[in-house]
């Protein structure tokens, strides 16, 4: 069976046109943008063109876009850079309990080593942050609020613009991790009302190891990588020219195809959700029913554990995930699913399917069929299923008894 890749939130294949755009910068136009001869200048021009394209796509100015080595670096840069540059103003940060590790671990580091206090806001059962909670959490020591645009595990899209109102009212800086949204749904820094925004392009048919941080003009931020004067002294290191060119090409393709593709994916997504819920008992959708990424399906399958489903899917050439790919080496169930209030069995039994450019309706149907088989098989093996069936039979009996009694 041909491989069915349903893990586009973890990473995506680089689009052939993106590879094509990058290739000349490896061998032909390999110059160093910092060099003054015309040869380096060609590379510099390519980088600046890319910067303008990325900026244009998110409604920013060129000089507000700094290229980084990926989404994680962008998140680190935003949080550490703002914390360091503004610590005279206060030592309090606000974020949520469902952020990506790149934000959460950076916050923990700032707590441990930077003398900062961090509020991790709860979310509701759909994974939504309540803007009022943000407002309530703000103190006169708060210097930064960081709320992700869309969650990588459950796909829930946050009301960033509403949250922004309260953050701006208080005169505080606002960062959003838009790694899962840029190029997938519309992102405009002014409409969102953010001062900093993280981008990674390997989630968007671009290369790994390159990303960007939007920094609103006038924002005080410390450099994260010190050294040469690349990126206006804010991010030292020889520019990854092919990577940056690839990033901008991926953005260009997204600009052309995004709105159509999002519609198509949302259809597939809804088909997959519906079929799973219809074909399998004891399955629950995680995340928000409609405020979710067009390509995200996250379900919990009762009585069976996620990894054993994943491995079985893999044996049938289907790639999916259980929570963030990053957390797969941890034994803890996903912090995101726990924040939703899921009982541990359900968190352990979660499956994430994230759709992409090459997926078809046919594949969706195959996945449902294969997964049904797998789940049936695993449930036979599961002590929880047995107990639950016993419990249910028990319950049914009671109900019948009560009905019986009532009838009497």
């Amino acid at each position, binding site marked *: 069976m041909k491989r069915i890749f349903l893990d586009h939130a973890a990473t995506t294949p680089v689009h052939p046109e993106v590879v094509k755009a990058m290739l000349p910068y490896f061998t032909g136009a390999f110059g160093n943008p910092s060099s003054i001869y015309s040869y380096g200048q060609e590379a510099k021009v390519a980088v600046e063109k890319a910067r303008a394209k990325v900026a244009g796509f998110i409604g920013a100015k060129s000089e507000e876009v700094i290229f980084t080595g990926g989404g994680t670096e962008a998140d680190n840069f935003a949080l550490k850079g703002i914390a360091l540059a503004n610590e005279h103003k206060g030592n309090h940060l606000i974020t949520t309990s469902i952020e990506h590790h790149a934000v959460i671990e950076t916050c923990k580091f700032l707590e441990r080593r930077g003398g900062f206090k961090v509020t991790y806001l709860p979310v509701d059962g759909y994974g939504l942050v309540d803007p009022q909670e943000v407002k309530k959490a703000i103190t006169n020591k708060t210097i930064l609020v960081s709320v992700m645009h869309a969650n990588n595990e459950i796909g829930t899209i946050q009301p960033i613009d509403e949250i922004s109102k309260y953050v701006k009212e208080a005169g505080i800086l606002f960062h959003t991790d838009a790694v899962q949204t840029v190029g997938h749904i519309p992102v405009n820094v002014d409409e969102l009302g953010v001062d900093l925004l993280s981008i990674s392009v390997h989630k968007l048919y671009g290369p790994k190891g390159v990303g960007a941080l939007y920094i609103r003009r006038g924002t005080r931020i410390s450099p994260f990588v010190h050294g040469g004067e690349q990126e206006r002294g804010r991010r030292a290191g020889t520019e990854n020219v092919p990577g940056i060119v690839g990033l901008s090409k991926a953005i260009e393709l997204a600009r052309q195809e995004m709105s159509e593709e999002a519609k198509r994916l949302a259809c597939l997504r809804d088909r997959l959700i519906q079929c799973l819920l219809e074909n399998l008992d004891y399955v629950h959708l995680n995340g928000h029913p409609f405020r979710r990424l067009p390509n995200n399906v996250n379900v919990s399958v009762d*009585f*069976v*554990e*996620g*990894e*054993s489903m994943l*491995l079985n899917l893999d*044996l049938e050439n289907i790639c999916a995930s259980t929570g963030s790919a990053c957390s*797969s*080496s*941890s*034994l803890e*169930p996903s912090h995101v699913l726990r924040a939703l209030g899921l*009982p*541990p*069995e359900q968190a*352990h039994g979660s499956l994430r399917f994230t759709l992409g450019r090459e997926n078809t309706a046919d594949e969706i149907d195959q996945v449902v069929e294969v997964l049904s088989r797998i789940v049936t098989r695993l449930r*036979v*093996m*599961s*002590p*929880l299923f*047995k107990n639950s069936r016993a419990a249910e039979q028990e319950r049914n009996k009671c109900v019948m008894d009560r009905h019986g009694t009532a009838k009497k």
Partner: protein
Amino acid sequence: MRDGPARYSEKVMEHFKNPRNVGEIENPDGVGQVGNPVCGDIMELYIRVNESIITEAKFKTFGCGAAIATSSMVTELVKGKSVEDALKISNRAVAEALGGLPSVKMHCSVLAEEALKSALEDYLSKSKR
């Protein structure tokens, strides 16, 4: 915990794909249940003992690939063994029989050992009565 995702040996995958001795034993001579849903692993192990020899072993497991494979392997290992010998089966022995386990998954072999011990103790405490 810092090893990255699990990569399983062929033997583990083989037992994962075709687990031996899945199921329950009616009126078993010993049952062990270990683990809890918070950790994502629950193992139930059933044994039938005849004249101090384990003649049958079955399991039910909720858990990851390694949990299923170790359950399968431990039931294979004990069959035909005396209770005394079975008590000596260590988690390492289970892991080794599977051609090794990723370090993040060694706890599954511990669970298998514990499930077995627990079933054997159940048998011993019952047989004392």
